């Protein structure tokens, strides 16, 4: 036996076995066992005092049945929430119960997951009634536009022996939880033919600038300033320059809303990661004065998510609201989605695309400059066992980044 190691006592296995029994133990089960044991002692010996003790146990059970039902009589719930928050924020919420029938003071009520944006948060009200409120902190875990709906209230008043549930109406309240965004300080783009580095931090050309494409003969009405004098002198006639409108300060972010391409659960869902990436980039770009738009999905009448690139606070609000509510519920091929967005392409735009499907889609043909791809390892999101894993720096690809379940998105934007 190695030095320093505690000597095995031979009890580890039985103790471990007893510990496994713990998960089967519940208060009602233990209470029933003790009640049966008390009754057995009383019955065997015919002892009235032990019957008295058994009567107290029976009384506790009967009061529990009636008490729980009584506490769950008609009532409604009112929540006071901030209108907006982001995933990962701690917000203050106030809950109050408005009884509509006696008793006007309710005790030991439990609301399981009353907040749809915080499913792990339960609420326990020791005492509540018309004049009492309960304020508490809630961690926003899910994004979305939430309207508080009926809440299931459980009550095991007063001893925890008999648990009953009932659904109570909730007075209207809503909250929009935006996706988590990471601070973007540095974000590398793949090199383009006309750029040596692609940091978005450098101000890009503003909208309206034109790119010289080719020359043609002068026509009446052309701007004399566009006359290409050297070519005109060479050819002996007036030649003008032809320009293309460029949009080098515009970015499109296209999400894949096909549920079949995603995997994972909760905040480790691959679509949630994509939304976080999209929200972080969009927020950074728009706050930097650039134009950014988002799109995704496809139905008969067009893309499901469609916000053309724009700038300004209102647009940022609209983008974040859209990203808060978008769901991966549109089974459309990503290539079809991109094809549907082709009419919205303008030269100079930066397209940020997401690959979730196993098959690697080709870049759209209409894109003149390489798109920035976020390629997801969907298989890693299906893996439920991440014990001992640490967050890793995202892998760089020639045309983007490799994202897996243990990718540190904060490091992606640092």
């Amino acid at each position, binding site marked *: 036996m190695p030095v320093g190691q505690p000597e095995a006592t031979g009890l580890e296995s039985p103790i471990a076995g007893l510990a496994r029994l713990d998960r089967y133990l519940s*208060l009602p089960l*233990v209470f029933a066992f*003790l009640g049966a*044991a*008390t009754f057995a*002692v*009383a*019955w*065997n*010996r*015919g*002892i*009235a*005092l*032990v*019957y*008295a*003790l058994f*009567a*107290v146990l*029976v*009384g*506790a059970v*009967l*009061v529990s049945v009636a*008490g729980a039902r009584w506490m769950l009589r008609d009532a409604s719930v009112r929540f006071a929430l901030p209108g907006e928050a982001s995933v990962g924020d701690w917000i203050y919420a106030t809950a109050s119960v408005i009884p509509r029938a006696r008793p006007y003071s309710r*005790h*030991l009520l*439990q609301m*399981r*997951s*009353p907040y*749809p944006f915080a*499913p*792990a*948060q*339960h*609420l*326990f009200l*020791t*005492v509540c009634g018309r004049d009492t409120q309960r304020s*508490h*902190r809630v*961690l926003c875990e899910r994004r*979305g536009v*939430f*309207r508080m*709906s009926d*809440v*299931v209230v459980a009550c*095991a008043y*007063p*001893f*925890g*022996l008999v648990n009953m549930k009932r659904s109570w109406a909730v007075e*209207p309240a*809503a909250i929009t939880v935006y996706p988590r965004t990471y601070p973007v300080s540095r974000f590398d783009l793949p090199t383009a033919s006309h750029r040596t580095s692609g940091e978005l931090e450098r101000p890009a050309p503003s909208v309206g600038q034109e790119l010289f494409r080719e020359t043609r003969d002068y026509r009446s009405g052309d701007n004399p300033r566009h006359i290409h004098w050297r070519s005109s002198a060479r050819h002996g006639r007036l030649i003008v320059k032809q320009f293309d409108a460029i949009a080098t300060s515009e970015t499109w972010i296209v999400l894949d809303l096909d*549920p079949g391409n995603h995997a994972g659960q909760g905040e480790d869902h691959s679509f949630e990661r994509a939304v976080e990436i999209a929200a972080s980039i969009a927020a950074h770009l728009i706050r930097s004065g650039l134009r950014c738009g988002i799109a995704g999905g496809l139905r008969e009448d067009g893309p499901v998510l469609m916000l053309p690139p724009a700038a300004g606070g209102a647009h940022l609000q609209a983008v974040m609201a859209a990203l808060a509510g978008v*769901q991966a*519920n549109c089974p459309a091929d990503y290539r079809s989605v991109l094809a549907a967005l082709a009419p919205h392409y303008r030269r100079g735009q930066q397209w940020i695309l997401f690959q979730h499907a196993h098959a690697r889609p080709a870049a759209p043909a209409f894109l003149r400059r390489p798109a920035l791809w976020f390629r997801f390892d969907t298989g890693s999101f299906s893996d439920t066992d991440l014990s001992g894993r640490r967050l890793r720096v995202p892998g760089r690809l020639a045309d983007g980044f490799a994202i897996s379940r243990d990718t540190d998105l904060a490091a992606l934007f640092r």
Partner: protein
Amino acid sequence: MMQPIRITGLYVGLWIALTLSAAARAVVSGDAPQAMLGIFFWAVVQGGGLWYARTREGAPPKTLVDGIALIGMGVCVLQLFLDGILQAMLSLLLWLQAARNPALTTRRDAYFALCISLALVVFGASEARSSAFVVLLAAYGLSALAVLVYCHQQAGLERELPAEAPAPGGDVKSFPLGHLVALSVGVFLVALSWYLLVPRPDPIHFAAVPTGGGDKYSREDWEREARTGTVPQRGPGSKSGRGSRPAKQESKADEPLDITRSNQRAPGVDPNAIVMYVQSDRPLYLRGRSFDRFENDRWSRSDTGTRKLLPQDDGKFRLSASGEGVKVEYLAHVVSLPGSVLPLSAHAVTLAAPASVIAAARDGAVFLPAPVEPGFHYGASSLLPEDQPRPVARDVPGDRSPYLQLPEEFSSRIGELAERVSASATSPLGKAVALETHLRSAYAYSFETVFTSQGVTPLEAFLFDTRRGHCEFFASAMAVMLRAIAIPSRVVHGYLAQNFNPVTGFYEVRAFDGHAWVEGYVDGTGWMTFEPTAAYPVPQREQQTGTTLFDLKTYTEGLSLQEALQGKISLTASVAALFRQLAEAWHALVFQLRSWFDAVAGWVGAHSLALAAGLAAISATGALAYRGRVRLLWLWARIVLFATPRAKIPLAAFRQLERVAGARRLGRLEGETVEEYLDRVERTYVELHAELRRIARAFNAARYGGETPSSAEADGVLRAFQTIGMRVNAG
């Protein structure tokens, strides 16, 4: 994951519960000063550990916990030798809990402590004999219920906070104390109703009585005599072995019965002092010694011979051959009994007692090798006749002359009285009953000593002059009068177990219950018990009613009667009257309910075929309905929507959709929003996207936007619902 307890009230409740559990053990195990000391000690020890757990952070020092546990182990070993294994185990429980208290920080620890306390209280309740123990039970129940409430509150708070969440600021709002008291009162009222009104099953008494010889009740010469059958010669220098009684004690067994002295009011004896507790399902006449020789003012035993008995293989003594009759089993716990005679019911068949040998007289009296000490308990079974309620002793008198003996100076008036009273009866039993009835009706019960005049025996003075006296006079009078009409008789002295205390479940036999009655021999039956004393009931076949309320009424009435006989006025009579009224009210209610029940049962019996057919039809319909529940729900949903006002159609449509989809296992989950729910439904029924969205929009607008739908919108919702329903209905 369990978190540290943050509720002070939980610790306080636990402290009270543990202290009371230690008190429950102490009050039944030792005398009063020792019990008080023990309670104080455990209150300090348990409270100290709990105080430490509440006020200190982190685990307690290992030396503290180990030290307490070591002390407990040492005390346990010491008590093992001094008080026996049961007391040692109970002590160990308390010490181990005391060692756990400084580390008591989670709910599981609190529940474990409650279990320990419950075990101790159950032990105390099983050993307690006093009604006052109910107060301790009530206090324990209050504290244990409080601990349960606080533990439940703690569980709720643990579930509220995610593991990594910061704790909320400020103290946890505690459960209102007034509400807790009201709750406990409610539980006690329900418990009291259950306790008073629900009948209890007959006890089974498995391993209830210790058997086998103890050192205290053994005697070598008796054992030798039992084995060999020879009576040892007594001479100078002879040894009688361990546990031998001195001559003084032996003579006590042969002490005559002086009829002029009432054993109920013996000097130095409190008539209300409890001498033994008896567990039985009916009142019992517990026979001590019988007397057959009468000499004007005293009775004696002409035959003092006994046979010695050893226990059988099962540890029990066989006293007589088993025969026909109703078997009655009873347990007796001795508090204070004089002498070495064990009171047993007539025709005792078996005896379980911690003795190595006993002596049984021919008349059924049983003697221990040593005087009965407080704390002795034994169990026995007797046979009662099936055809009549009077206990019957089955020993057959070979020579009847001792039981027909009359004193030399027997007054002829007594014989004439006996002839006159019994003239109308033809059978010996009838004559005996006539004498019994005459004495019960024509004579009064009194503790007054009869002053005799010259030439008049005390018995004559009782029968013809004073016409009042105590039970020894009544029994002597009847026994003598039976002999005067040639019926063998004897006077039996023992105890009457008639005061059943339903709170404790024991018959309380007091010194006042020391009694004398008559056994008359009837050919073909045996020694039948007769009760000539008017203050005592004639032997009946009555058993306990099974409901505590009625038994309480009987108990308090019996106590008030005894106190009245002793010339005392107390509150017991008023309490008895209250219980009587309660019992009568309950009886009337039960009678009415039973009448209704009988009427219903009669109707059901008369129409059983039709009912069976109806039930079968209902069952078949129910089965069919279950199979087609989706269709039925859909049909019902359409009816509901048809009857719903236009303004509420979106709400009703959504609710009905939930129900219909729920039948297809697509019910709305806990905490699921409307949109999420419909998204989930849409994943199954992709083609219903437009309809589901329409309903969702309309529902949200009506529910949260307060909008009233227009006719077109309502119609649209109905059409959408129709489409959805038909699709879901199809499967």
